C-alpha cells in the first residue's frame, strides 16, 4: 500500500495535493483497494460549490456505490474528464488519477499527513 509523503489525507480516504492556492482531490490507494474494481465515476460540474464533509460525487464498484467526500469548502475549478470513460485509472494509479481541482478554498477539514494516515488505515478493522 502506497502513502505518498507530499499529500494530505482525509478520514474518508481522499487525498489532497496542494498546487499553489488550488488543490487536487483524489481517492487513496487504500480506498481503491477496499472499493474493488471501479466501473463508474460521477463528478460535479466546474463552478459547483463544495462543502467540507459533503459528497462531491460518487464512485461505483462491482460491490457498491460510495460517496466521495469533499475535504474542503470551495469551488470546483476543473474535473478530470478522462476518468469518466476510464474509471479503472483510479485502480491502476490512484495518486495520478485526480478527480477534481478546487479553487477559492475558504476552509479545510483537519487532514492527516502520510504517516498519520498510514496508521489510521492500519487501525481500521
Amino acid at each position, binding site marked *: 500500500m502506497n502513502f505518498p509523503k507530499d499529500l494530505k489525507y482525509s478520514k474518508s480516504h481522499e487525498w489532497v495535493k496542494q498546487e499553489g492556492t488550488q488543490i487536487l482531490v483524489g481517492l487513496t490507494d487504500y480506498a481503491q483497494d477496499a472499493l474493488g*474494481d471501479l466501473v463508474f465515476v460521477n463528478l460535479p460540474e466546474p463552478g459547483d460549490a463544495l462543502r467540507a464533509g459533503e459528497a462531491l460525487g460518487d464512485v461505483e464498484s462491482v*460491490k457498491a456505490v460510495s460517496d466521495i467526500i469533499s475535504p474542503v469548502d470551495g469551488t470546483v475549478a476543473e474535473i478530470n474528464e478522462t476518468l469518466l470513460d476510464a474509471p479503472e485509472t483510479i485502480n491502476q494509479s490512484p495518486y495520478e488519477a485526480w478527480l477534481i481541482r478546487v479553487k477559492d478554498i475558504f476552509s479545510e477539514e483537519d487532514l492527516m499527513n502520510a504517516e498519520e494516515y498510514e496508521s489510521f488505515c492500519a487501525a481500521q478493522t
Partner: protein
Amino acid sequence: MKLIFELGTDGQGTDLLPECDVPKADPGPFARSSAVRLPQVSEVELSRHYAALARRAHGVSDGFYPLGSCTMKYSPKINEELASMREFTGIHPLQPEDSVQGCLEVLARCETMLCEITGMDSMSFQPAAGAHGEFTGLLLIRAYHKSRGDEQRRKIIVPDSAHGTNPASAAMAGYEVVNLPSGPDGCVDLDALKQAADEKTAGLMLTNPNTVGLFDRNILDITKIIHDAGGLCYYDGANMNAIMGIARPGDMGFDIVHLNLHKTFSTPHGGGGPGSGPVGCKASLSRFLPGFLPNPCGSRYSLKRPPNSIGDVKAFYGNFLVVLKAYAYLLELGKEGIPEAARNAVLNANYMMSLLKGHFQAAYDRPCMHEFVITLEQEKKTSGISAADIAKALLDHGIHPPTMYFPLIVQEALMIEPTETEPRETLEEAAKVMNQILDEAQKEPSTIHLQPLHTPVRRLDEVAAARRPIVCYEYPQE
C-alpha cells in the same frame, strides 16, 4: 449455449397466430422499413431452449436460497392455483362493481388483516413493489406537511445501513436525504438522531429489524424523537417476516408502512414480478392514500377515492392477483400460523448462525432476528479469502450465495437469511458446506479463487459487464 436468435433456419417458424381477418391499415410514415426479424424455430426447439435455460437457473424449487434481506422463502403452490382461477383472471378493472363484489371483498378483507398485522388503519394496494411503496409513502409524508402549510420540511433521515432504495425513493420524492451513521452496535445512534432531527425534518425511514438483522431496542425513543421534531416515521416492511404477528410497526410509533407481499406473503419473487407493495397508514393520513379503496356499504362494497388522495401511483387497483395470494396465505396460516412462521424464521437464522460460529466471524455477536451478517474482513487481510470467494464456491454445491457486500457498514459482508420454510437438515448441510469451504480455502487459499468449477459459466468479468454491457443481439451482416 446459443441464443434464441442463433437457433433455427429460415422458414422453420411456428404459426402461433391465426390468419389476420381484419382489413390491413396503412400506417403511412410509421411503417417499418424492414421486416421484423423473429427467431425461426419450431415449437419443440423453442420448448427445449427455455427448458435448457431453466435448468441453468437456480430458484427456491432447486435448492437453498439464503439471500439476505430478500426472504426467498417457499411460497405455497396452492396459492398460485387460486390466483389462476378463471373467476379472478377473467375480470376487467372497468367492470361494474356489482359484478366483482367477491374481488372487492378480497381487497377489503386483506386490508383489514394486513392493517391488524402492521398496526395501521388503512391501506392502498396500488403500489406494485417495495420501492414503489416507499415512494408512495414519501408522497403521503409530503401531502401531510403540505396540508398543514408546513412546507419548509425538506429533509428525510435515512440510516447508513438502510436499503439503497430508501435514499433513492426520498430523492425521487424531491427530498434532501440526511444520512445517519449507525452506532457501533449496528443500530440507530440516538444522539446523532437528536442532532439531525429538527424543524426541517419531514420524516425518518427505518427498517426494524434493521439490515444487520437486529431489532432496534430503542425504537420507541427513535420514533418519539422524530415526532417531537414534527416529522413522520416511515417503516420499510422489507424485514416484516421477522416480526409478523408478534410486533407491530404501528405500536412502535410508525405512521406509514409498506409491505412486500411478493416476499413476505406468498408471492415468489426475484423473477421480475409482478409484485405488490401496499402502503398502510394511521387514520390521520388515510385521506391522502392513492387509488380507490373498497368501502363497505351495507352488504356490498364500493370503491371510493380518499378525499385528499395524492392521486394514482399505478393503474386501477395494483396487482390484484398478488393481493389474492396474500389473502389466501393469511387464511391458511391464521393468527397462530403467522407468528409461528416469524418465530421459525428467527429460530432458523439463529441456529444457522450458531452452526457457523467457530469458523466465521459474526458482524454483531448477539442473537439475531430473521437474518445475520458475517464478515470475512480478517480472512481477506490474512489469506486473501473474500466474501465473494465464499459466495462463488457455494455455487458448486447447489446453494445460492447469501447477499454479498451489503449492508455497506460491514466490510466483506455475507448476509444470510434462511427463512422459516427450510428444514433443519438443509441448514445443517449448508453450514457444513460453508465451514468446509473456509477450512479448505485456509489450507490452500489459491484454490478458492478458481471456484466455481462445475457451473455453466464460472467467474464472470463483472467489471466488463458493468462498463461495456452488451444487451442487444446483432444479426450477422449478410
